[in-house]
């Protein structure tokens, strides 16, 4: 008989070891899935996790992509992790990402063809504000009317997608685009373009922002009062109340911060790698970032590593699609599986596994 006994405190060793274990288990399960699809599992796993980094033929293209994809994931996940720690569930980062992108691109398109140094900083500000404002809707509804922030933030993703469609087909449509949907390409607009900072590395302003966010979140969580309050509210809401934590303020701050970071990620994406506002330019980073946040144990440094790993599955997935004909959806299922395993093996850090017969009390 196997029986679980709650640990007084989560095991430190397992807290670090479980994500690694989950990744390993996912590779095994994913291998089985690829085998079921009729592909060689070993080749498939190697193509996803090894070739993008070390294959001579692909690495030169793939390595820079790692930062391009990891940047928005880390940026969004860092914001989400703050709320998740405090038990505030913002799962609508995808919508905030879209609104941030629209706000940032909107500023650039409205001022086109202005060529000024302050245009890009203005766009950054607008992007953060756009995401922040969209996240404030569930936040204010939660604090004013106690409406469930999970459902509202998620439903607003679908609304944001409609706003995006309206913009791509209407207000932001390229007047010189020959009637096709989509805005001007911001990469062809030097004052507004989010260009590579160091050629050939994939390092753009969004990646820099992601690193800054990770450091800021780390400092805040370990050194600042707000970080302490966030951790306290998550571990014991009652104790937090007695310690003078204002739960409503915490909701506004956590949702606002995560919204602003998601908005920033969207803005850096639309002015950089994506280039233009168009239907479906959002690639689900807002949802994948949820996996990244959990894989990184809601810890800034963990998120940094998890974001890189998840970016690798994106790139490796594309490579596997191209080389082996593994469908793109398989990677999505693979990422979902990772979250399953991660949550499953968590039992090891929170409980002792005891073998032997249960004693009757």
């Amino acid at each position: 008989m196997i029986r679980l006994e709650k640990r007084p405190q989560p095991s430190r060793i397992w807290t670090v070891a479980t994500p690694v274990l989950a990744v390993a288990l996912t590779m095994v399960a994913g291998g089985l899935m690829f085998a079921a699809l009729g592909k060689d599992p070993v080749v498939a796993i190697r193509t996803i996790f090894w070739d993008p980094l070390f294959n001579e033929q692909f690495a030169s293209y793939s390595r820079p992509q790692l930062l391009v994809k990891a940047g928005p994931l880390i940026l969004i996940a860092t914001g989400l992790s703050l709320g998740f720690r405090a038990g505030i569930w913002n799962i609508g980062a995808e919508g905030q990402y879209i609104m941030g992108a629209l706000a940032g691109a909107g500023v650039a398109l409205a001022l086109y063809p202005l060529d000024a140094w302050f245009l890009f900083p203005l766009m950054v500000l607008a992007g953060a504000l756009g995401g922040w404002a969209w996240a404030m809707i569930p936040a204010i509804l939660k604090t004013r009317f106690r409406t469930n922030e999970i459902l509202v933030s998620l439903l607003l993703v679908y609304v944001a997608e409609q706003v995006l469609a309206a913009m791509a087909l209407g207000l932001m449509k390229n007047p010189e685009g020959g009637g096709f949907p989509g805005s001007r390409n911001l990469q062809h607009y030097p004052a507004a373009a989010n260009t590579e900072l160091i050629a050939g590395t994939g390092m753009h302003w969004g990646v820099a922002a992601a690193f800054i966010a990770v450091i800021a979140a780390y400092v805040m969580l370990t050194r600042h009062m707000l970080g302490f309050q966030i951790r306290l509210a998550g571990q014991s809401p009652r104790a937090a109340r007695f310690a003078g934590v204002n739960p409503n303020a915490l909701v506004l701050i956590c949702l606002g911060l995560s919204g602003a970071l998601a908005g920033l990620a969207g803005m850096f994406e639309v002015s950089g790698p994506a280039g233009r506002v168009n239907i479906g330019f959002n690639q689900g980073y807002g949802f994948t970032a949820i996996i990244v946040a959990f894989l990184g144990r809601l810890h800034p440094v963990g998120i940094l590593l998890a974001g890189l790993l998840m970016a690798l599955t994106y790139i490796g997935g594309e490579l596997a699609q191209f080389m082996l004909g593994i469908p793109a959806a398989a990677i999505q299922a693979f990422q979902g599986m990772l979250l399953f395993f991660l949550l499953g093996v968590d039992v090891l850090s929170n409980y002792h596994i005891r073998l032997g017969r249960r004693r009757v009390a």
Partner: protein
Amino acid sequence: MDLSAINPAVLAASLMVAATPILLAAIGELVVEKSGVLNLGVEGMMITGAICGFAIAVETGSPVLGFLAAMLGGAALSLVFGFLTQVLMSNQVATGLALTLFGLGFSALIGQGYVGIKPPAMAKPDLGPLADIPVLGRILFSHDLIVYLSLGLVVAVWVFLRFTRPGLILRAVGENHDAAHALGYHVVRIRLAAIAFGGACAGLGGAYLSLIRVPQWTEGMTAGAGWIALAIVVFASWRAGRVLLGAYLFGGVAVLQLNLQAAGVAVPVELLSASPYLVTILVLVIMSADRGRAALNAPASLGRVFHASN
């Protein structure tokens, strides 16, 4: 703009069809939440049901087998959630999200070969003279079996929760799992059964989308229906009858906005398309603003992890 083209009887009939997937998913989730479990994976189970049902219906040529497969698929996926949350005691919110993310990817994977195929049609029961009654016949007696099944399910769940002993036990588990455990009820087993029931209902609802409502398979075709079902359970303040009301209210908005789009009303199409989500948010706000009503019926152990200490 020509609003006279909108026939109220047809509108009411299509309202019921539009509401059925959400009604099925919501009534299943109601039972799950009544047992004290918050499964946010409704969307993932619905889309898995949609593709399982579609694939089996196409392969066998039988929509009935398709619906059965959808229920099995939804229940199987929900038991993954059940295993993680009840046995390994993982966080229910996060696991539910994982279920949705996995379901969306998994369904897209299976659905690769089924894009653009037309599923076999489901025969409608012939209700004879009833269907010929003017207006009422069109609204009430011209539907397929699943619509009636969904209505029957609402009644059955209502009777089960309100008048039967197992229903009482299920509610007891949802209100206070420690007390139910102390009385000797198998909390985990009861919850697993409720979770599987919810999964089967969500799967059925998803298959109704892909086999009858649309009928076609496209990636991500549930488009938030599962989340709306979750919202409807809150709106219904955990009562079966109100779930019906909420689902039909939502169906009404969904059908009306489609009709308005077709009639070319001078409102942006995107605003109309977003209206079901906006209405759902609005309804949630109204319900939760009333402190007493919302809190009164929520199962007290909802979302809490149960761990028998000995």
